[in-house]
């Protein structure tokens, strides 16, 4: 019997595996995807991006979304919400834009008040509770950057980041200049990528392909290279890859075993403590699929809260094209230098006022458009809505690849939790493992768009100041599959939450959920840093639990 069995191997799982195995406990990690090593990774667009190397085929495994057709008739459509099935999870494929949540994010209801139609609540812990763990992630997992003081800079226990910022493209200083003119405070974006060798890992190779690709040097601070590979050396950690956990068995009070499928065979594992960290949608799905006589609605779900209050990162993105010909001669060649990072963010409107009312705002990150060449070439295929070919196409391609660069911005603001956004399972649709698939429903709150637009207008000002043309912005309520949280919110009230403040299920003595599922609200930043930090916190709670 293991001390701890963990479902999943990403940012919510690996800190627990690392901490507990280092403390001498026997830990097993079950991961649905394959176990790759750093030397297996490359920048093969055809395999990784065009053919989705790291996500399952939608024929085998899919998600369903409740939707309404143009005639008003309800139907269910298939959609992929997979993010990365491999050891280390989707942290392998992240861009690693790392921002901490701010103190007010932990008490949204107290600070900004109730919002009609939204299930906003305060977290049962404060920023101060999580701060030591954010700090730990910086040092142990690896976050590079430089602290710049600004209106919403959160309190830090370390003065600056432990690792130097990545090398920057010339555009970064142009953004700084533009922001100065606009009286905005630009700051270097903290990144979960190492600029120099450290933590027994290599530095970044500036390959130009970071987000959506697994790191081929180990510089990206993904869960496998930062934590699991190191933990494997202590002899206490076992990783079972290509193992799909389909059911958690329990008594009335305790989880008794995990059932999983590997090599087409059903197998079982027992432990003292069980941790679910399969990413928000799949974690709720696993609990809902683990019905038994004590939990007829799904494990830990007698209050029917599992799957509820699913949240995403609201906001969207925009872009503008900067042409060489529009720049002074001294800057023209700098524009097309490849590989270096943009790494600029704005948080000036993390809170803002409109007509005397305080709104929780968010974060803007600037970056270059993704460098995958096939989508960039396909964009050049169109003049307006028409496909072009011949000389026109050749001209468009050369303009796109040789004469200009697209600057992109991303907006992150709160996706307010609502009654209508949740995960359920559909017993009439089974995946290749014969398990009911997740059925998603979305009902975004109108304030999400309002705030997103407010932030986007600020980002557009920066692009205009830079001299960008052909600008476009897409702020929408479409849920981004790679920025998902909630479904098993933690809280003090057993009626309205699934987990207690330590992320242990209210109803079971030995079940923890440690991915982003616990988050009742998501802050206005990408989630990964918070997931890592909370998982380190939960690791401490589990240590105490095992010691007692």
């Amino acid at each position, binding site marked *: 019997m293991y001390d701890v069995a963990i479902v999943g191997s990403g940012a919510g799982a690996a800190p627990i595996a690392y901490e507990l195995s280092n403390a001498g406990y026997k830990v097993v990690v079950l991961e649905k995807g394959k176990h790759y090593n750093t030397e297996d*990774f*490359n*920048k*093969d*667009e*055809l*395999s*990784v991006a*065009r*053919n*989705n*190397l790291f996500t399952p085929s*939608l024929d085998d495994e899919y998600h369903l979304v409740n939707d309404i057709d143009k005639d008003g008739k309800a139907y269910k459509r298939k959609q992929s919400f997979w993010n990365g099935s491999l050891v280390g999870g989707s942290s392998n494929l992240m861009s690693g834009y790392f921002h901490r949540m701010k103190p007010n994010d932990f008490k949204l209801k107290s600070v900004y008040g109730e919002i009609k139609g939204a299930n906003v609540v305060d977290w049962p812990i404060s920023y101060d509770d999580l701060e030591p763990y954010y700090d730990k992630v910086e040092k142990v997992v690896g976050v590079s950057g430089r602290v710049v003081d600004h209106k919403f800079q959160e309190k830090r226990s370390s003065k600056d980041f432990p690792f130097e910022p990545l090398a920057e493209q010339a555009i970064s200083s142009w953004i700084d200049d533009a922001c100065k003119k606009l009286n905005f405070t630009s700051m270097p974006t903290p990144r979960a990528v190492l600029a120099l060798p450290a933590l027994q890992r290599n530095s970044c*190779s500036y*390959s*130009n*392909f970071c987000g959506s*690709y697994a790191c*081929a040097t180990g510089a990206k601070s993904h869960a496998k290279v930062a934590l699991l590979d190191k933990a494997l050396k202590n002899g206490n950690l076992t990783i079972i890859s290509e193992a799909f956990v389909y059911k958690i068995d329990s008594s009335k009070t305790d989880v008794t075993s995990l059932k999983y499928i590997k090599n087409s065979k059903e197998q079982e594992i027992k432990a003292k403590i069980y941790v679910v960290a399969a990413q928000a949608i799949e974690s709720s799905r696993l609990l809902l699929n683990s019905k038994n006589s004590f939990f007829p609605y799904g494990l830990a779900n007698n209050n029917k809260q599992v799957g509820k209050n699913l949240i995403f990162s609201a906001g969207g993105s925009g872009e503008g094209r900067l042409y060489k010909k529009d720049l002074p001669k001294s800057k023209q060649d700098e524009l097309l230098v*490849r590989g270096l990072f943009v790494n600029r963010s704005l948080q000036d409107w993390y809170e803002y006022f409109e007509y005397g009312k305080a709104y929780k705002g968010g974060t803007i990150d600037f970056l270059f458009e993704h*460098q995958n*060449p*096939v989508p960039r*070439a*396909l964009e050049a*295929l169109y003049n307006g809505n*028409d*496909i072009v*070919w*011949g*000389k026109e*196409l*050749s001209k468009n*391609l*050369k303009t796109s*690849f*040789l004469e200009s660069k697209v600057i992109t911005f991303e907006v992150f603001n709160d996706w307010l939790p609502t009654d209508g956004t949740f995960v359920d399972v559909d017993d009439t649709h089974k995946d290749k493992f014969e398990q009911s698939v997740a059925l998603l429903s979305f009902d975004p709150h109108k304030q999400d768009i309002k705030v997103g637009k407010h932030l986007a207008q600020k980002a557009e000002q920066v692009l205009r100041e830079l001299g960008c043309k052909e600008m476009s912005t897409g702020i929408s309520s479409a849920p981004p599959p790679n920025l998902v949280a909630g479904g098993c919110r933690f809280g003090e009230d057993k009626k309205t939450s699934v987990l207690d403040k330590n992320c242990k299920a209210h109803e079971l003595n030995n079940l923890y959920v440690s991915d982003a599922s616990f988050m009742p609200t998501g802050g206005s930043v990408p989630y990964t840093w918070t997931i890592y930090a909370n998982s380190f916190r939960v690791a401490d709670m589990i240590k105490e639990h095992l010691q007692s």
Partner: protein
Amino acid sequence: MNRRTFMRSAGVITLLGTNLSAGYIIDFDKNDSFYTTLELLFSDLLAADMPSVKQLNTIAYIATVLNSKKVKENEKDFYKNGIKWLNEDSKELYNKLYSNLNSDQRQNVLKHINTYSWGDSFLYNSFIYYFESMFSDPVYGVNIDESGWKYLNYTPGYPRPNKVGENV
């Protein structure tokens, strides 16, 4: 399925351009009229300074994709039907197969099919294949001598693959 049936079948279009896969380059019948018409089509679509389908091995790449078990049958069928419908359109306008038209006539046919949703999708998919053969690593048997990369002074990401991807 004929062209007009396709046009009536709303929803099919949304499948196009997704999940297109590739594989090892296979042997294929280069004299098959489907492939000879395809080669002529690309010669009409590409500017003189763009890499030819011979330089990129695009036709062989398409043949490989259309014979891959990893590509959905409806996607393959649509692309194969595209050439059939191209010929139907050519006959409708000039009473000749596409390959028997002169250059100006072929351009007119292309402009004509581009006004149809199936034509737009067919051309779009043709360019997906072309660009995949232009930018993919030569390890796939395409982009011969990196001619696609050289055309746009494109530097690939490193490390490059040293073998065909396990999922391709």
